[in-house]
């Protein structure tokens, strides 16, 4: 899946992340959970790629595998041209300052026994050789950048509210001047009125430091606001990838269409008028995905072909990619 103009900062090719399942007395491997099964995409410098999907579709696993928090089963991950998938130990560690992560739960990702100052300083102590005074100065700068009062550096995480804790996590991620940040549901645990504050902060920081984001979320309206391009995942695979306007304006994959129609609209007159595509049943288990297309068990437009053959990703032009037999047929009949 190659993209249009602009240099790609992150290139992911056929990334697979399979987890073995052990069971029985002898703990023999009895199956594989294919959490991420063949992802290919680029993230261009300075853009925000939204990664959306329902829980269990593998979006967080993909984010973590790209940062090499897991050992991927196969595939390539290149950041600024360096293949991370094959690196390990010290040579991987040298790459860490370039890529950082903001986690979902600001309560769980901050050590409750460390002060905010030392949490933000930790990456600096690990990777940058700064004196104690320089470190303190840098921590204060970072706290200013994310809108925290620098006088609070000696306080502990529990003294802060959810939104402020998320700001601490953001300051820590920014400490080493990364180019690429994976934001894994950074606003999911926050109240509506606080979500907008954090999203605005992320946008300001992106403009100021030229950051590139992979924004993982299940909140489709927030992704529309933030993302340049959006990838929709279903059961370990990307079913559709397109510029945000195209994806929200004219979704092509039946799953994307159903997903968008399922989002409740905060407008009572439209909400009751709009037609909704109701999907039946639940997402199949990634340990036992269906034959053919992964979505064939719930697809409202399923055909016989879908149950036997896996659809290939097809380029529809203008950076719009879809993996669906219906779209392929439609294109074929036009030709």
């Amino acid at each position, binding site marked *: 899946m190659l993209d249009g103009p602009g240099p790609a900062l992150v290139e992911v090719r056929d990334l697979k992340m399979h987890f073995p399942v052990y069971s029985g007395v002898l703990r023999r491997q009895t199956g594989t959970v294919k959490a991420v099964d063949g992802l290919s995409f680029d993230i261009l410098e300075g853009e925000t790629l939204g990664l959306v999907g329902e829980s269990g579709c593998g979006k967080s696993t993909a984010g973590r595998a790209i940062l090499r928090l897991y050992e991927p089963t196969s595939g390539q991950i290149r950041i600024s041209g360096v293949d991370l998938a094959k690196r390990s130990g010290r040579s991987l560690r040298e790459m860490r300052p370039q890529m950082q992560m903001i986690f979902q739960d600001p309560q769980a990702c901050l050590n409750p026994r460390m002060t905010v100052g030392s949490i933000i300083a930790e990456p600096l102590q690990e990777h940058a050789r700064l004196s104690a005074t320089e470190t303190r100065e840098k921590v204060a700068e970072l706290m200013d950048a994310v809108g925290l009062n620098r006088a609070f550096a000696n306080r502990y995480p529990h003294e802060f*509210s959810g939104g402020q804790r998320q700001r601490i996590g953001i300051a820590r991620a920014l400490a080493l001047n990364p180019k690429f940040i994976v934001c894994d549901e950074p606003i999911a645990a926050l*109240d509506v*009125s606080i979500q907008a*504050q954090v999203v605005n902060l992320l946008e300001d920081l992106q403009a100021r430091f030229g950051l590139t984001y992979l924004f993982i979320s299940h909140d489709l309206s927030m992704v*529309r606001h933030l993302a340049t391009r959006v990838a929709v995942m279903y059961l370990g695979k990307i079913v559709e990838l397109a510029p945000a306007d195209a994806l929200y304006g004219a979704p092509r994959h039946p799953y994307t269409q159903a997903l968008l129609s*399922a989002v*409740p609209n905060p407008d*009572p*007159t439209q909400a*009751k008028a709009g037609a909704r595509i109701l999907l039946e049943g639940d997402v199949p288990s990634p340990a036992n995905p269906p034959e053919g297309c992964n979505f064939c068990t719930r697809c409202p437009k399923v055909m016989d072909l879908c149950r036997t053959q896996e659809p290939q990703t097809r380029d529809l032009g203008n950076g719009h990619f879809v993996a669906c037999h219906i779209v392929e047929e439609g294109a074929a009949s036009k030709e």
Partner: protein
Amino acid sequence: MPDGSEPILDVKDLKTVFRTRDGTVHAVNSVSFSIAPGELVGVVGESGSGKSVTMMSLMGLLPMPPAEIVSGEILYGSEDVRAMSPKRLRRLRGGDVGFVFQDPMTSLNPVFTVGYQLIEPLRIHMGLSKAAAKDRARELLELVGIPDAAQRLNTYPHQFSGGMRQRVMIAVALACDPKVLIADEPTTALDVTIQAQILELIKDLRQKLDMAIIWITHDLGVIAEIADRVMVMYGGQIVEHAGVKDLFHTPQHPYTRALLETLPRLDGTRVDKLNSIDGQPPSLGAHPTFCPFSARCPKVMPRCRQENPQRRDVSPTHDVACFWDATTGGAHA
């Protein structure tokens, strides 16, 4: 009541506090509302706004102490809930008043089958025989759209998916034909496509069963879709109450207005920068002698910091607790 029918649940001036080591927390502060049979009232608010505590107080579900209902009147039909004996209250809960909680995994007992958990309330509240209760349990699972209901009765909660478990929770809540259903964030833990299924189910069941539903959520989209009336809570108080269309089209309270503006939309044009509400939700420790939103309010006036506004009518079906007047853009006379 707008349509003049007799309310099934009528709450007046409810005040609930928590006595803690660090002082008294005013969690619910002079909350009044009523709901008629067949009506769906949405309650929106952020975490800590008192929406769950209000509903828990109604049915005596809060641990006392530390919680204490300081004042207020809760009428179920013509009966005073606060004066009820524990025995009567127990018959009411799970009988005439059903509950659906946010997390179906923690509300269902993992060591009993789904069938057992459905049959239990039927035997206790309705006095059905084992066989009759089992039949009814199967019917309930069919009602909420679970396939193979007869077999599924013998399975355990962990064998269901999240959406199916929430359906089981709804079936348990509906077991004894409740007249009031209190649903506390019932779709928050679910994915949007599953949420859509549950919303359709609730709309369908409402028509079939004619019960009053109180739907607590922080998702304004869900409210727009299913509610007849909406109460917006902030800092333990109802700050605005209106019919769903009025609330979304002519919001009066600065908090409601800001909340609607912070939401990014799936349709329409994309804004460059989201509006945000600065600051943090209030601590409920302070005795509320001032407006709880005054610290974050863009329209704040000196009076807001000295007095707590009472709810005033904007129209017969719309009221707001605010000194600022959205129609004139100035202070309310």
